[in-house]
């Protein structure tokens, strides 16, 4: 697991470096996306796995020539609502 995390860290560092160069010389949007990917990877291998799975889902949609369904949108929104509730209801800060 440590080897996997170290490898992911190397990938994240590499992506960040490349993101800066890409944003400057090739395409700012792609650079931003690479940077976002690097940042998410750094936040844990679970995020990297989720991102890979989600990317495969988008690619499958692309290949099938279809747009996301209402159910798929609702599923994502439900996940967002649940995560948002946890974040905002976490232990109160000292000045609240």
């Amino acid at each position: 697991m440590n080897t996997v995390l170290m490898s992911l860290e190397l990938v994240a560092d590499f992506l960040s470096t490349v993101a800066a160069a890409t944003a400057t010389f090739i395409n700012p949007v792609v650079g931003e996306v690479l940077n976002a990917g690097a940042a998410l990877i750094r936040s844990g291998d679970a995020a990297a796995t989720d991102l890979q799975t989600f990317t495969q889902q988008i690619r499958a949609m692309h290949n099938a020539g279809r747009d996301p369904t209402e159910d798929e949108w609702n599923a994502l929104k439900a996940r967002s609502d649940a995560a948002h509730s946890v974040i905002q209801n976490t232990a109160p800060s000292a000045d609240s």
Partner: protein
Amino acid sequence: MPRHTRSRIFWPGAGFLLTLVALIVCCANLIGCASTNPIGAAADLDQRAYATYGSFVIAEEQAAQLLQSQNPMAALTEAGKAIQRADAKAKPTADALVQAIRDYDAAVKSLPAGATTSDTLTAANTHLTQWLATAQTDFQALIAALHSAP
């Protein structure tokens, strides 16, 4: 070392390094974009909105897990507060993005037979594009707050 000798070594060397960097950048665009870039995999506006929103949801879930892993008896850390603030700002934007894509899809479906555009569709397209731009900014801020957390 004579100047002409230094020049003969320096410029080819610099050219080689620049070529190498260009190759790395090109390869990274292929590799980096391949597996963890849902927005890059999207083909049209609907897919791009979904990919953007989904990327935000993944970041939000990571933030939730991170905050849950902290000691519930301790006051929230500065990093935790930053994540809360970033999420509080990004969530309404994310919800607005969902509504914007629904309005856009409704405008597409309401097009008269044979028509490819309408004022309603143009307005919905503009609205959606604006929310996509705002979303990417707010979502990046959440990801940056996550990145800063220990």
